[in-house]
């Protein structure tokens, strides 16, 4: 039984950095990367808890998260690419026609 608190703190910090990044960065790719960071923060805490509880469910989940992240990349990049091609800009602030 190890103390998982430091891992969790790191995980929380990572998550916060990711979330903050989403809020402050304009480039769609960077925003997307920040989201990946959040997923990975979750992975870290999953693995830590898995260790804490002594079962493998958390670790298995972490793998699934990675797979899902990969799938998300595929979809996300496709969408970002289309937008970039139409607008010649990867700034997410430019895409603001739909409002109110």
């Amino acid at each position, binding site marked *: 039984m190890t103390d998982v608190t430091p891992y969790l703190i790191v995980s929380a910090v990572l998550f916060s950095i990711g979330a903050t990044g989403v809020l402050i960065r304009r480039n769609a790719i960077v925003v997307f990367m920040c*989201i990946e960071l959040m997923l990975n923060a979750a992975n870290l805490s999953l693995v830590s808890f898995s260790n804490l509880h002594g079962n493998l469910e958390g670790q298995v989940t972490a793998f699934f998260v990675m797979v899902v992240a990969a799938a998300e990349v595929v*979809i996300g990049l496709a969408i970002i690419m289309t937008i970039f091609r139409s607008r010649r800009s990867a700034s997410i602030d430019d895409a603001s026609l739909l409002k109110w």
Partner: protein
Amino acid sequence: MNGFVSPHLEYSLLWPIFVVFGVACVGILVEAFAPRERRYATQVALTLIGLVIALVRVIIIGVDVTPRTVAEGALVVDGPGVFLWGVILVVAIAGVLLFAERQLDTGVSAFAGQAAALPGTAAERTAAQQGLDHTEVYPLLLFAVGGMMLFPVAGDLLMLFVALEVLSLPLYLLVGLARRRRLLSQEAALKYFLLGAFSSGFFIYGISLVYGYAGTMDLAGIGDVVQHGGANHGLLIAGMGLMAVGLLFKVGAVPFHSWTPDVYQGAPTAVTAWMSAATKVAAFGALLRLFVVAFGHDRLTWQPVMGAVAIATMLFGAAIAVVQTDVKRMLAYSAIAHTGFLLTGMIGFTAGDGDGTDATHAILFYLLAYSVATIGAFALVSVVRDSNGEATDFGKWTGLGKRSPLVAGLFTLFLFSMAGLPLTGGFIGKWEVFTVALRAGYWPVVVVAIAASIVSVFFYVRFVLLLFFTQAQKEVVTGGEGTTTAVVAVPAWGSIVVIGACALATVLLGVVPDPVLQLIENAGSFIR
């Protein structure tokens, strides 16, 4: 170590899901190998057949369902789950029929000829001239349907997360595939994707915390731990909250609603019609199961918060809808308001015998009634057109009742159902959710819900007024440039069937709701 034990899968119960995913995979193959001109017919037929087979199987399962855990605990087949399957599949069939619509826009579908082609370039024109179609939308739809079917029957947190992603990813793509107004559509896709991914980040982080609290991914197992008290309650609270964020985002609850109007407006109308119903059905199924089965014993913690979210959602959705001038956007905000009403049902958890059965039933009925109304309404939006395609501006709808009483009348019917007027399904739905909330003692929420209903009635009724009693600014010049009002295009039989069936269902659910109520009652409750 006993070596590898192959997992036991209850194929007889699961094969509706397998059929859907299987057909989706076949659809990919069709895209790869079938000649371009045959793909449309093949895909539509294949998808429909697959969905119908799945539906038939679901019905057979549903006739005599014994609630049980299947697939080694990853999935749960019980009454509400099967009922939701049925609803999702019916909605999906309607979606396919709407996707297949090619008559409205001179023989092409509402989807972009070639999504990769830039708007306004030669490539796009070529694609249009060749009558190209993204027939991938059908497999995409099927994958999403598969995810939706998994979502409410997920038995553990992992499956919940996977199902969420499986249903979301195809949707992100579908949203961006509109043939007209490409920029808006792409923007909607980008927003939906980024925010969806963002919220699933919260969701998975919440999963990790809940897992950390309970030490298990199994929903029923979590329920046990919650009942008997876990080690670190703070983890549960935080995890519960973050998971709620992910799900509330999917259903479009305030303050996680921001994507809804933009996406509903930007997406191809057929997609909007289908996803507005299907996503909500699936996500509410999951929300219900998670909060009933896993967190049900801690309901005193989450119910007040859920009530507050419900209040905010209802008021916000209804109020902002009042100032909209675009039909799709108005319906989007109305969808937010309906999320609020559904959440009102969520907190009616203690009503009845305290295991959430009544609340579940109320929400199931509401989902069904809302689905048929919203699909019908969006389907009608797609047939009201001017020279630039769909006419969604209020001004173009002015006086439609004089030019096309049938379309205006049906639209009125759907609006009235959403407004919850008696003799429509929406009324019974509203009655159900309000009743359970009131029985659970959450009368302030019900009071607000009634106030929000009044507000929402206002914009529905005002729109009906616009349809029937406001004079059109200019007489219609059919087909010509610069027409100020829209005309009704005749859709293909698929859309007609969908609209007709939705109208019929709306009326039947309002006038003779007993069979459906009975069906839902027979579905029993979630197993815990």
